């Protein structure tokens, strides 16, 4: 990617602290308050510490790291689900994607209703959904089952439909959290081709995954997080190698 491509995700010195609250009722909070706010009502930990990075248009970026390193938290900051305690996140254009398979799907609704609902959640307009509906169903290979309630779907069908809606939502920045590992081989290949196609068309892709082989195939850039800090940022194969060598130690 050329350095001249516009920045689509700009992250400047963000930090995020999570409060592990132990209490959930007003009563306990009040007692704590009356006792002079002593003791631990809550424990804290840093999910992200002073993270800064720029992602440019058309880049394919993988966020790597072990469990609890802050990858998903960072992704949530880019999507806007979370806002940082310090620092700023700014994005250009529409940000959408597949953060979890079927978030926003309702098992008791038909596939058709779910496509409409989920597409609208991802920010598509009514006309866009109508235009792309056939293409969504075709890509998902759902066929005649589109009017069946989603709870009767196999997990593969569920995933295909959810992924299909997400790729058709056509955002400027596409986020994917740990989903490419699911699905059978042919469909996975199809997804990767689609992602390649979107990236060639100038879409920015940010992926969180533990599947290192897959990450090397899909992404050109890797960002390794550890304890909420950026440890390494570079070409994906180098970062993956670095991560592998660390986990062997």
């Amino acid at each position, binding site marked *: 990617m050329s350095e001249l491509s516009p920045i689509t995700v700009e992250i400047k010195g963000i930090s995020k602290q999570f409060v592990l609250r132990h209490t959930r009722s007003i009563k306990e909070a009040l007692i704590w308050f009356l006792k002079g706010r002593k003791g631990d009502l809550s424990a804290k930990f840093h999910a992200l510490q002073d993270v800064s990075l720029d992602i440019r*248009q058309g880049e394919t970026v993988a966020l790597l790291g072990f469990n609890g390193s802050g990858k998903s938290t960072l992704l949530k900051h880019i999507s806007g689900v979370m806002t940082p305690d310090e620092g700023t996140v700014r994005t250009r254009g529409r940000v959408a994607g597949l953060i979890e398979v079927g978030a926003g799907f309702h098992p*008791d609704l038909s596939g058709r209703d779910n496509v*409409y609902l989920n597409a609208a959640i991802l920010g598509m307009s009514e006309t866009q959904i109508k235009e792309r509906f056939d293409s969504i169903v075709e890509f998902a290979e759902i066929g005649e089952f589109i009017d069946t309630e989603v709870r009767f779907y196999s997990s593969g069908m569920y995933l295909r439909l959810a992924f299909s809606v997400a790729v058709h939502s056509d955002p400027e920045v596409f986020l994917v959290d740990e989903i490419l590992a699911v699905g059978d081989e042919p469909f996975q290949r199809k997804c990767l081709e689609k992602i390649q196609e979107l990236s060639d068309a100038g879409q920015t892709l940010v992926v969180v995954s533990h599947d290192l082989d897959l990450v090397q195939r899909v992404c050109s850039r890797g960002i390794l997080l550890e304890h909420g800090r950026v440890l390494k940022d570079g070409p994906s194969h180098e970062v993956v190698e670095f991560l592998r060598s660390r986990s062997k130690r």
Partner: protein
Amino acid sequence: MTSLLDTPLVRPGIGQGLKDVFHRRYLLKLLVRKEIKLRYRGSVLGVIWSYVKPAIQFVVFYIAMGVFLGLNRNVGNYAVYLFSGIVLINFFTEALNNAAKSIVYNSGLIKKIFLPRELFPVASVFVSAAHFFPQLVVLLIGCLLTGWQPTPLGVLAGFAGFLVLAMLSVGLGLFFSSVNVYFRDSENFVEMMLMVATWVSPVMYQWTMVHERLGDFWFAVYQANPVTVGVELFHYAFWSTTSGGDAALAAPPQLFELWLPVALVVSAAVLALGQFTFRRLEVKFAQEL
């Protein structure tokens, strides 16, 4: 692609509150439709239940309260009097109850995907409005059977009463749904408040009884409650022409000149407070849920 530079960098997750709900009204429509569809899934009669239940309720009121308890003697056509207040309270109760739970209930979505979170409490109020409609139909049939005559001011009163309670539901819904994320006590508080709401408004009894006991000052306080004004507006709209003479009982003096504007202002203030609280609290929804 060249146009991407023209789009500015913006901070994700910073919404514009209820304005965003308006921009995403297609999504709002789908969310409301989903809830309505889900309500009667797997039932043979489906939406007919929405008409049967209030109709039976009305018949029970008419016989048990009007005839057996003899309440018709004090208040002409007591069944319509009671029912017109109850349908409005039903709407308010359902709207606020569901709105208060809506954020926690939809936590799966809110934690994963960014969308204007105000959509959920607002959708709850719309769903309740959809459930209110069949009850209104039953009420109108009851009214027509007992000699109701629509007047322009009556129709206006009906719309105004509904508007006041809808605004109040959205405002309180925004407030309690966001507080509920931090303290689940909020749900229970709402339930208690709603139980009281039926009794601090002239649903079962008449405003004149309150006025006699409390005197002018406290009666004014009583009237400042938008729910009270909403119920009185509904009495004016649906009951006053069927009551056979004691129409003055429907509404206290200056209902339209004074109390309706007061109710609108109070509801608008509650709405503003709800929106303000919601926006202060929503930034941490994803991590607190």
